């Protein structure tokens, strides 16, 4: 401990760290939205997938959710199909 540490007021929360924490959240959010900048074929793909699923199972319009994300150097197509409860036997 240095001489003047004794008379300086105690340390406040480090505001740079707070800034970084807050920024990390908004930037992560911005980047997810950016990654979600969808390719042109996206709407058609979603429509076709829904059509295929409906050949076998009656589902609602929002049953097929697709998303494009990035992992390392790969674009990843995420596909989520929700089936209605009662179709399970």
């Amino acid at each position, binding site marked *: 401990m240095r001489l*003047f540490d004794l008379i300086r007021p105690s340390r406040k929360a480090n*505001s*740079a760290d707070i*800034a970084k924490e807050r*920024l990390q959240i908004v*930037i992560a959010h911005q980047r997810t939205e*950016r990654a979600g*900048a969808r390719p042109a074929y996206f709407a058609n793909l979603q429509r076709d997938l829904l059509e295929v699923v409906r050949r076998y199972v009656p589902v609602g319009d929002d049953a097929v959710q697709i998303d494009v994300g990035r992992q390392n150097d790969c674009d990843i197509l995420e596909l989520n199909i929700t089936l209605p409860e009662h179709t399970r036997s």
Partner: protein
Amino acid sequence: MARIIVSTSGKGGVGKTTTSAAFGTGLALRGHKTVIVDFDVGLRNLDLVMGCERRVVYDFVEVIQEKVPVHQALIRDKRVENLSVLAASQTRDKDALTPEGVERVLTALAEQFDYIVCDSPAGIERGAQLAMYFADDALVVTNPEVSSVRDSDRILGLLESRTRRAERNEERVRQHLVIARYDPVRVEKGEMLAVDQIQEMLAVPLLGVIPESQAVLAASNAGTPVILQDSADAGRAYDDIVARYLGEERPMRFVTAERGLLRRLFGSRA
């Protein structure tokens, strides 16, 4: 082939024009034929920072509208050989810029210059998008401050999607991070974002750090690009940036606080 470099940031007042002026002048000082183009139509300022405001006869918009050939609108710098400025129009608005017109002017400039430095307006609208659209390199100017960092990230997104290189699926625009108005003393006190924190968040290679410096205001007061002031810390920092851009290796300066007697006595709690 001329290389097109945009100085951009999203947020206003972070040092885009200071950077364009210093960077362009630095390239010319090293013998490269360089032109700095002001894209801030309606709010032109590059002419003031470069000290050529009284020599503007024709501007960028008049060249785009083919009222005069581009060479007639170029203002040759009186201090540095190989350096010219193309001023923005002060009376028009940014709609006067068209993609075709900008492309035509840049193509004409590319015939006589090695480097074309595009000084982007603030924001993410038409003017800013056109300034970056044809770029090969981008200097993303960021202050160690939350809104500037967020805006820079936004600009990085646009550089990856709204440029000619992105649309043509070519090699992407080379991004360079320039952190300006950096105060290492405040960083050590934990009051300001540190270089590595900013870099980690934006994930762009760091080209250089410009310290918060009284020399920048003094230089713009006088209409002298700060890089022409050898004694100024900010001027030397810009010289490093130009050297690194051209492939030279230089250690990072101005990132740690200088240890004076007083600081040693009071200590740092960083």
